């Protein structure tokens, strides 16, 4: 009783009832397809989230003011004006900090010709471009001299540039911001992700403070640690330095908040991974249902082929041979369904990638796991029908009409 012959027999029995075979396969196809597609999409999502957060900057720590309580009423995070330029200077002295960029934002009206555009005006030091990994697609960032002299120069984000200049090159043009003329010296490369990051103009911090906000307190301080390993240490140092700067005594809580990029990253990765295993679980359940479908059909098949089983036994088939025949049949359903399911899952994931613009790659682990599980499901759910078939008595089976 060789494997090839048995496989041939199984395939022939599939061909005898194509619709039923297709419906049986469908359960497995959907299950495997769902596992492969969801795992691949999940991987892609995790990768894209990771990439976006890493795109915020290199080894980034974000310091924002804490809450203030005014007359017993909490004012919410960031309401305090607790960060100062001397904090920035103090942080710059730390050995595990490579760059510090104070940052302040406001809303402003940008006028160019007859275009009137409301956008975010962000003021910072030239270090911002390093700390936040800001790439320029044209022109140059402002430099230290321009920062010190509060020069009227600006770097523009792609969304803002499109809305103000259309497709024209913004570099070198002059715009009016709240009635003050500014020269555009550079354009940021698109940040991707949310367009909020692209809809802004960045000017020297001193210019922003002097001409727009009048406040010398940065609303955010971006700090870049020397290396990824030193981020925890840097965070501790930043905290200690700021506490000393702000004269906080032991037991008093911080009047600022430090957000660690690595922490955000691992939190978000945790969330996407949880989501992914949740989706994988649902897909797994559909695979289980597919397995029950296999069992159902195999039981029908055993009943239908009772006479054939009786004949085979009369001709010398042992219980083992009959058992093998039906197991190979149900295993084949799992195998074929698995292969088709992987193809469908791959196509599904690719379509998802095209539609959402995410780079989706086939999750090879998911493919292997889904495939093996499909075959195992086929075999496991085939056991009961196969055992039933093998236990049929040849005379009853031969007489069965």
């Amino acid at each position, binding site marked *: *009783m*060789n494997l*090839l*012959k048995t496989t041939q027999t199984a395939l*022939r029995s599939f*061909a*005898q009832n194509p619709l039923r075979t297709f419906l049986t396969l469908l359960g497995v196809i959907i299950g495997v397809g769902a596992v492969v597609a969801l795992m691949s999409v999940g991987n892609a999502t995790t990768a894209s989230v990771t990439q976006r957060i890493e795109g915020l900057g290199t080894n980034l720590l974000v310091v924002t003011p804490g809450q203030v309580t005014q007359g017993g009423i909490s004012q919410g995070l960031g309401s305090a004006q607790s960060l100062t330029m001397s904090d920035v200077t103090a942080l710059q002295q730390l050995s595990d900090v490579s760059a510090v960029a104070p940052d302040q934002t406001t809303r402003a009206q940008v006028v160019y010709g007859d275009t009137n555009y409301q956008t975010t005006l962000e003021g910072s030091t030239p270090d911002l471009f390093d700390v936040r990994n800001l790439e320029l697609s044209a022109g140059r960032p402002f430099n230290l001299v321009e920062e010190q002299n509060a020069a009227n120069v600006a770097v523009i984000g792609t969304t803002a540039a499109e809305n103000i200049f259309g497709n024209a090159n913004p570099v070198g043009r002059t715009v009016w911001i709240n009635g003050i003329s500014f020269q555009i010296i550079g354009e940021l490369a698109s940040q991707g992700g949310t367009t909020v990051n692209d809809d802004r103009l960045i000017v020297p911090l001193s210019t922003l403070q002097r001409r727009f906000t009048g406040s010398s307190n940065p609303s955010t301080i971006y700090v870049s640690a020397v290396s990824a390993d030193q981020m925890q240490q840097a965070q501790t140092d930043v905290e200690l330095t700021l506490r000393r700067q702000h004269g906080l005594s032991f037991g008093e809580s911080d009047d600022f908040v430090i957000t660690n990029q690595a922490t955000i990253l691992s939190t978000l990765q945790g969330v996407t991974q949880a989501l992914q295993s949740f989706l994988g679980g649902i897909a797994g359940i559909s695979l289980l249902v597919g397995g029950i479908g296999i069992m159902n059909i195999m039981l029908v098949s055993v009943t239908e082929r009772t*006479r*054939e089983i*009786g*004949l*085979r*036994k*009369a*001709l*010398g*088939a*042992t*219980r*083992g*041979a009959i058992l093998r025949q039906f197991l190979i049949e149900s295993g084949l359903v799992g195998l074929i369904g698995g292969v088709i399911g992987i193809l469908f899952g791959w196509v599904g994931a690719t379509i998802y990638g095209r539609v959402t613009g995410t780079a989706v790659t086939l999750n090879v682990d998911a493919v292997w796991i889904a495939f093996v599980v499909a075959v195992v499901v086929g075999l496991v759910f085939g056991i009961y029908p196969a055992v039933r078939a093998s236990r049929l*008595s*040849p*005379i009853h089976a*031969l007489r069965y009409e």
Partner: protein
Amino acid sequence: MAILRLERVSKWYETAGEPFYAVRDVSLTVEPGEFVAITGPSGSGKSTMMHLMGLLDVPSSGEVWIDGVQASHLSDRELARLRNQKVGFVFQSFHLLPRTAAWENVALPLMYAGVRAAEQRQRAMEALRRVGLDPEAKGYHHPNQLSGGQQQRVAIARAIVTRPALLLADEPTGNLDSRSTEEILALFQSLNDEGVTVVIVTHEPYVAQHARRVIRFADGRIVGEEINEHPLRAELAEVAR
């Protein structure tokens, strides 16, 4: 040595606490080269006899020897092996696998015997030729493309392909017209002439007349046995060889 020996064999079923005897205390010996017909009305137990002789069923009591092997206490696996090697079955309704070429049907017992694929095909073709079917013309036909007589000949080819000691036929002509009946009986007789032991279970007296030895069954017992000195010869030129 006898091909088949049944020693006080009984088969009963429990129905509502009351044992129902399908076969009661039967002893029977079949010698090599015999042509035996077992006859009797339906319900006389002759089909159960055939199942017991063919090791498809195990007796409730008594012993069965086939080709010198005591079979009453063998495992399922050993019984399957004995059936495969010692017995060839021919059934009333042919029992050919549908949508399967004639030669593959014939090769089925060889597959379970573990014969190599190439040899399976060659031996199946040989067996088809022996039963008067042209392997090239009919070997690749599916059963539904063959006439009843041809289908039964394929079934006989399948029964003899393992060169068994005993050929057991259960109403082999029951589904055939008179012309095909002649063909099949002639085939059995010519196989018997070559030394194959044949046992036919039938309720048709005409079929039984072709056997040298006729055993009559009623109510699960042997009620009579006669030797037919001049059995009818079914002769058909096209089948003869």
